């Protein structure tokens, strides 16, 4: 009887391992396929195959997009909006979360209600666009920063965290005459580093992946962000954005297919996230747990 049972469990274990390995394959394979395509020579890149490996790796696709003037600008803008945007997000989130975390804040429930309501109801696309137009933010870099300056969900997570801190730490400082701002900056923030790291990562990923705001609020190539450029290259297949700014003679040196350029661009946009992701994963998970337990 016991023997039979353990045989059944062994079979299940093996089946489970096989199934999980298959899942890992299903998740990783699309990225692998694109990576191999990006380093395959012309004949292989657009061939009908699984693109599991290539015997003659070439980096011409990468050389080609390295000369793409749009890419450099787009990369710069994405890094800029991620840094500036995340800084604004985190600063404002903490600034608003702090008073909301205080039980003695006058009309606290009213303010909280006004803010939480916006999570569930919004004006919609066109009214938002008209607002940006009337504020004169169309075509401005700040159109990528200001509309989402506070992520309400993230702000509430911070508020919950502040609320859970023991009150007596702050009390002693207040008796010594410290102002609220000093209590926030010198006492509360230093002991909230982990939650701030968590929301910073959320905000940063949001900025890195954003493209829709850039698409509707900006039209200049100078404000192009990485994801939007990628969309124009790989989804719309726009030749203007795919071609490098190099001269015809320069372009003739390379013999690459659109597939190679597209896949190289995908890899270039994905690699930063892939590199950072394994190290910061625990912070992401922490955030979702804090949010789901108390939110």
């Amino acid at each position, binding site marked *: 009887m016991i023997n039979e049972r353990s045989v059944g469990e062994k079979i299940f274990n093996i089946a489970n391992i096989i199934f999980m390995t298959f899942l890992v394959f299903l998740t990783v394979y699309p990225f692998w396929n694109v990576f191999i395509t990006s380093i395959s020579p012309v004949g292989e890149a657009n061939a009908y195959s699984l693109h599991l490996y290539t015997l003659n790796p070439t980096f011409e696709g990468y050389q080609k997009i390295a000369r793409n003037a749009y890419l450099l600008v787009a990369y710069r803008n994405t890094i800029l909006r991620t840094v500036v945007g995340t800084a604004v997000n985190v600063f404002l989130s903490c600034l608003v979360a702090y008073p909301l975390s205080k039980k003695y804040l006058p009309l606290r429930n009213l303010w909280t209600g006004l803010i939480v309501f916006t999570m569930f109801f919004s004006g919609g696309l066109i009214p938002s666009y008209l607002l940006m137009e009337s504020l004169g933010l169309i075509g401005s870099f700040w159109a990528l920063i200001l509309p989402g300056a506070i992520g309400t969900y993230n702000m509430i997570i911070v508020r919950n965290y502040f609320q859970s801190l023991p009150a007596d730490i702050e009390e002693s400082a207040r008796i010594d005459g410290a102002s609220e701002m000093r209590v926030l900056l010198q006492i509360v923030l230093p002991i909230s580093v982990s939650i701030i790291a968590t929301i910073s990562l959320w905000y940063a990923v949001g900025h890195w992946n954003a493209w829709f705001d850039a698409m509707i609020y900006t039209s200049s190539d100078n404000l192009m962000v990485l994801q939007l450029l990628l969309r124009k290259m790989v989804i719309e297949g726009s030749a203007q954005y795919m071609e490098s700014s190099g001269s015809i003679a320069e372009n003739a040196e390379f013999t690459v297919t659109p597939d190679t350029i597209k896949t190289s661009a995908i890899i270039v946009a994905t690699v930063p996230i892939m590199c950072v992701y394994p190290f910061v994963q625990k912070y992401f*998970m922490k955030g979702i747990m804090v949010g789901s337990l108390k939110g």
Partner: protein
Amino acid sequence: MDQKKAAVHKPQKATLGRMIWKHRALMLMLLVGLVYYIIFHYGPMYGIQIAFKDYKFRKGIWGSSWVGFHWFIRMFSGQNFAVVFRNTVLISLYKLIAGFPAPIIFALLLNDLGGKWFKKTVQTVSYLPHFLSWVILGGIFLQILSPSTGAVNYVIKLFGGEPIYFLGDPRWFRSTMVILSVWKGFGWGSIIYLATISGIDPGLYEAATIDGANRFQQALHITLPSITPIISIMFIMNSGSIINDDFDQIFNLYNENVYRVGDVISTYVYRQGLIEMKYSYTTAVGVFKNVISFAIILLTNFITSKFSEYGIW
């Protein structure tokens, strides 16, 4: 009488005023945030009125003339909105049916997986797609699902099948969206269940082992009942998003050939609104959607809180 009223009300007002003055530092910090919410969240809500107006750029939001429910009547009498509404609900429904159980099954199987390192790797890999934008994933799947060079069709042909145009064939588009959405979300969605499972008292399993229960029986009689409350709450919350579509996914993967089955409310509003400039009409569509969505959220919140009261605590 008046004097009495004043006597009652005066101290109250003074108290609130005094409280605000006393906590002026806090109020000032809050004010910065309130200004943001008033401009960027309540500002667009002010613009909702153009759903009931004939918006003209020259006249502005306030100056445009009222037309009552004109745009809503047009919305319900036209063919397009019905199609788009149907697509939205159908795709969400399919995603709920396929996408809801996936993280639960994954969490249960992962929990039973031996080998710490292997387990950790599977977990890490499964979360990855969640962090990538649909622009990147769209680009990747356009490659892989291509009928002429894609890997998936290569395999289909290998087994003697005909190539399928997953993203261009109306018969396949919705299923493809559902599968890709499950692919992107199953790992990340499992976190909440894994955390709940890890919080189960190990004593329960020990007692069950002594009583001779095998691992399947333990999963069935300990793990599953322990996560049932969270499953129910997640189900109610997820079903609340039945009218919310995934703009990023559809917009990066659809094309004119599949509008008939794949065009959803948000993509429709974008095209009709910002491209065709039908501002008032699309605002009406947006308002209709937001009101339904809000009503569903209120309902599901009500059910969840009722449920939590009786079910968990």
